[in-house]
């Protein structure tokens, strides 16, 4: 499957610290070009360039504070509300700059869904949570909305557990169910990209397994970007892995080769847990 992707041979140039991996434009969903971000003048991301392939799971790994969550939030433009953030470079979604002035932020966020570390269902019924994004898009026949809600819950592997209590408060669900509900809520608006910011770190092992299985199943429908602290998780679910450190991209490549045969010593140290 990965072999079918045209790509430049990884490890061709060891002197280049940043990864060299290019997809043909038809295969790449997100193009991050020389992207830098600073909070109140303190750089958090520095000259990042990478491409995220379509319909694959790409994992961002790295130590705390390396900027992986910042990058994820930047793709969803969640930094807009923070006035102290300054940006340079660009991020393109399907060839269009997401910071372009004529771009509608709400529309961007509909196309780029995001799931956060802690489940954040709204204080409404399960049904209303999933229908929230649909209602934002204007009127829709109830029948169609019901169908979409059911489809989203089924896609998130939650339907069987909640179909009898759709109108109960979402806050009565367990943590793992809540996280799958949040994923269903995001899927309901049919995004092209799903950003997952440590989606399983607050969950028990069984819920974590369910989420991972869900991530693997979803890549047939959309592009997933996963931020995780869990090396095994990255190895289990992702097709490509980017290792970030200190706001810079250290290594990026197919997950197999990053984990089994990292080009750089820094990457190997981190993956094997030998980092100071």
């Amino acid at each position, binding site marked *: 499957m990965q072999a079918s992707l045209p790509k430049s041979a990884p490890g061709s140039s060891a002197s280049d610290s940043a990864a060299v991996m290019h997809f043909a434009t038809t295969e790449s969903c997100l193009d991050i070009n020389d992207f830098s971000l600073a909070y109140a003048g303190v750089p958090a991301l520095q000259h990042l360039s990478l491409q995220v392939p379509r319909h694959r799971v790409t994992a961002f790994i790295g130590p705390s504070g390396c900027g992986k969550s910042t990058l994820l939030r930047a793709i969803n433009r*969640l930094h807009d509300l923070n006035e102290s953030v300054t940006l340079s470079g660009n991020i393109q979604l399907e060839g269009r700059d997401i910071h372009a002035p004529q771009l509608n932020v709400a529309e961007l966020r509909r196309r780029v869904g995001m799931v956060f570390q802690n489940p954040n269902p709204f204080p409404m019924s399960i049904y209303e949570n999933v229908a929230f994004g649909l209602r934002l*898009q204007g009127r829709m026949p109830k029948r169609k909305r019901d169908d979409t809600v059911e489809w989203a819950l089924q896609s998130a592997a939650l339907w069987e557990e909640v179909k009898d209590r759709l109108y109960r408060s979402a806050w009565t669900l367990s943590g793992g169910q809540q996280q799958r509900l949040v994923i269903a809520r995001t899927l309901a608006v049919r995004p092209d990209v799903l950003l997952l910011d440590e989606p399983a770190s607050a969950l028990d092992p069984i819920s974590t397994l369910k989420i991972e299985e869900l991530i693997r199943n979803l890549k047939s429908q959309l592009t997933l970007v996963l931020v995780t602290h869990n090396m095994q998780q990255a190895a289990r679910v992702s097709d490509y892995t980017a290792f970030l450190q200190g706001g810079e991209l250290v290594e990026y490549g197919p997950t197999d080769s990053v984990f089994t045969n990292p080009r750089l010593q820094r990457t190997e140290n981190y993956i094997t847990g030998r980092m100071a």
Partner: protein
Amino acid sequence: MIQRLAKNRDEAWPWLSAASVALSLLMLAALMSLLVVRGLGHFWPAPIEEVTLADGQVIAGHAVREAPLPDRPGHERLYYTANRDLDGALWQWVALDAIQTRSTPADLVLLDRASWGDFVGRLVAVVTPNERLEGEAAWQALQQHLNQRNAVANGAPSSAASGDSHVPGDTYLPGDTYLIVESVEGRRRQQPLHDIHRAQRPNAMSMGENIQTWGGAVWRFLSQGPRAANTGGGVWPAIFGTVLMVLLMSLLVTPFGVLAAIYLNEIAHQGRLTRLVRIGVRNLAGVPSIVYGVFGLGVFVYGIGGSLDEWFFSDTLPSPTFGTGGLLWASLTLALLTLPVVIVATEEGLARIPDAQREGALALGATRLEMLTRIVLPMAAPAMLTGVILAVARAAGEVAPLMLVGVAKLAPQMPLDGEFPYLHLERKFMHLGYHIFDTAFHGEDVQAALPLVYATALLLVLIVLVLNLTAIFLRHHLRRERGN
């Protein structure tokens, strides 16, 4: 030693705090029981004592209270003897050692009259154009007449709607039936029937009748307008005025307070200026209420009201329409007074909403407005209600500013009636708090008004309680609906 002291202190402070809680609760209980006993007890039909004094004088009335004699050892007792038309006074102090006999004869009657207040004494006869009834037959006849008249008043809305059930009898037996009554000293008087509201024999009543009479008196207190310069009658216009003013105030203060809080918490850049504004708002809550009254008088009444009069009501000038205190200005002034409370409470509610909820909504493609109206505001609704509860509690008890901007001792018309445009915002209104103040200090007979003061105070507490409970119930319902 020091360690032991420290240890003792460690054990002492929970007790200290518990004691202060207990003390506060005790004071609260004392306050409420004082109001309940003095306020509600007033309506209980007390027995009438007939007292013979050492000098041969005979008096009759309710024993009210006792006090030490001013000039020699011993006590004296205050009697409510009524009969202002005969004695010139409603009250009489009697030294206890001057009392020779006390009895409670069953035939003593208490008449509630439209003029001269109550009468205490005996019924001698009922005289109609056709007949003259005496003794027990007279009492029966009087009861029958009064019942008939009440039935007419209740059954014929045309006469009842002209209102004023406290000027009874106009439509029935116009002045040609009268009673002959006699005080316990034997002085007689002719008493026109139409002048009498009620007649009772408190000493001859059973427990059931007592309760019935008490209930009737409480109901009249709640449902009728005041009379005898607020020392008698009921407080209905004041209840109505208070509740209406508080409701209007809530309607005015909620949108402003909530919008201000949203701006401060969600929209404004969180810098030094915002912090200053926030401190300012919090300090506004501490400004004495009379200052708001002065502001309301100067800006709302004279400023805006005066201009409104010049523009729209110039034909009635110089008599002012909006240029004088009224319901609208009073509500606005109190809305201003309670604005900080609503802002602070709402802001605290907004600050408690996790950013994850806001980001969750944004990440689904909600605009900022959609995020606010669909997620943030519903989640902050309980906090807003808390603010409104606090505002209502404060506004319902506030009297000082109202005296400047619209409250009246006796409002001639209710602010809400069947006359277009139904809600008369320019009218003056009555208010329970001001009614208490006025009744307690400005009546002709403070002694008579005092129980009404307690009763009115109790009522004011109860109204605030009911308003608060309603809001608390609403908040609880909202929280349950949201599942937290």
